[in-house]
């Protein structure tokens, strides 16, 4: 997504006619091991569940029916809306949205601060922010769990300083999941905003200051609109993975902070699973993400045209 479409100055035709041969491996690998599987998953979401896990090849809408409609314990009552799964999706959207806003609030000032250092300090600060991105996500999430446990160092420290007189009870709450998501994807927010701020032309700020705009007016009316593409890219990069996140809700959350990722995972574990239902939930998740990405792509083209 962050990549630029090829073209421009470096485009040349030395290997003209070789494109099919050069791109064949890409098409074979991604085609066979991603496109075909996703298509197969779409088909599976319309099949009948097999009780030992797996499917029977009989077409049915049962999986989507189970997702959206409640027909009572024996399936003979008039259908009403089933809220269980919609609630889980809604919670995921909400958590991912909140994580995005938090990352934006922390990420923008950080990116701005880094981008306005001199060249040498800038690389150092960038390295400081990127190192955690390279650290295994599982290990980061486990570290967060260790830190905020009831018996963990955070509570021990706060108890010792006397700020609290009993542990915060953070673990297994929505707040813990939120903290985990925020912590997991914060670098994704900082980097694209940094790239946008680095290209920002300070003559614009000076012009605004000459016209008696104060600092915060300049920020609101000049800087933010100019670096907006970076802000939007950062939001997408945080929101999309947060929505389908598995590790943060699974390790830091409890039963009341269940998210889409765990719901889907559960359908494929052991005999209690339901493959068509899991496939249907995955289809719905993918649809939401594709809509977000399409809206983003359209706004990009509109801006490019303007």
């Amino acid at each position: 997504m962050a990549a630029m479409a090829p073209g421009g100055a470096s485009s040349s035709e030395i290997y003209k006619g070789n494109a099919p041969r050069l791109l064949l491996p890409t098409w074979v690998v991604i085609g066979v091991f991603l496109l075909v599987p996703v298509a197969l998953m779409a088909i599976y979401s319309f099949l009948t569940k097999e009780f030992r896990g797996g499917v029977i090849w009989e077409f049915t809408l049962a999986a989507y029916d189970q997702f959206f409609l409640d027909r009572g314990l024996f399936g003979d009552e008039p259908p009403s809306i089933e809220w269980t799964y919609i609630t889980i999706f809604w919670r995921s959207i909400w958590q991912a949205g909140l994580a995005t806003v938090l990352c934006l609030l922390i990420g923008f000032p950080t990116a701005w601060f880094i981008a306005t250092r001199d060249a040498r300090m800038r690389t150092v600060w960038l390295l400081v922010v990127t190192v955690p991105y390279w650290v295994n996500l599982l290990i980061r999430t486990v570290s967060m769990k260790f830190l905020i446990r009831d018996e963990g160092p955070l509570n021990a420290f706060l108890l010792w300083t006397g700020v609290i007189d009993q542990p915060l009870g953070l673990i297994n709450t929505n707040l813990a999941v939120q903290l985990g998501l925020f912590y997991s994807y914060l670098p994704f927010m900082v980097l694209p905003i940094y790239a946008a701020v680095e290209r920002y032309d300070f003559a614009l700020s000076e012009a605004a200051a000459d016209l008696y705009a104060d600092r915060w007016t300049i920020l609101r009316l000049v800087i933010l609109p100019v670096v907006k593409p970076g802000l939007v890219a950062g939001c997408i990069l945080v929101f999309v993975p947060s929505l389908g996140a598995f590790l943060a809700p699974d390790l830091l959350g409890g039963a009341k902070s269940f998210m889409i990722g765990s719901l889907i995972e559960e359908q494929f574990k052991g005999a209690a699973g339901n493959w068509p239902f899991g496939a249907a939930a995955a289809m719905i998740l993918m649809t939401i993400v594709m809509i977000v990405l399409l809206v983003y792509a359209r706004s990009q083209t509109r801006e490019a045209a303007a």
Partner: protein
Amino acid sequence: MRQLDLRRFPGFFAVTMLCVVVLYAPLMVVAVYSFNASSSITLWGGFSLDWYADVFTGPEAPKFRVAAMNSLIIAVLAGCGATIIATAAAVAMHRAGRFRGKTASFALINLPLMVPEVVTAVASLIFFTAIGFSGGVGTILLAHLTFCIPFAYLPIAARMQSIPDAYEQAAMDLYATPWEAFRLVLLPLMMPGIFSGFLLAFIISLDDFLITNFVKGAGVETLPTAIFGAVKQGIKPNIMAISTLMLGVSVVFVTLSWLIGRSGQRDKA
């Protein structure tokens, strides 16, 4: 009137420090506690390297050693494969002019980045089950190869964007074949991008938990799935020692790719 410093906003430095604390506090705490002499993960019992010894020689050592080997083999193979595929793709996208299916190819290369990870995981599991592949190192490798391609492609394509084709044109004017122009001129120029592409793909493969967990099958573990399994029983000090070791490996890799990126930039100047 006092000159307004337009680069400075009050409070931004504080937020940056908060950002750094949030990013590092959990990792630092785990790193410190991995040197704890006490077997309790709560109380501090003095400095020791016992848990590191436990990682390599303790009762769980063989399990983690096998998992680490699996992770390493998969990451090297998936990283190399993805890098070769991405290099060919980058040459096509930047040196083959306009051709039919260029936009579609670009979308396809980036597809693994756009499909949510859990969806890829589900789709891969369904696919491998449907064609009768039982889970193991092979299925993990194929899945990793697929999602590593865009990560290898990004730095390679970025590098190619800054290489004008004048050098290859010159080589071909001097009767180099297109293959020689690629091998002797373009490839060396692309090398910093190719190397960062490999490093990125390697780290991404090593990092993956979710997709691996779906396609690995029973009894086969990579380091992340083995750690996840152990953490489900509670965080033990040996997990903290492994985590700290992996943290160290990551830091070495970032520094390495940073140095390479810097040398690449110096070439350009």
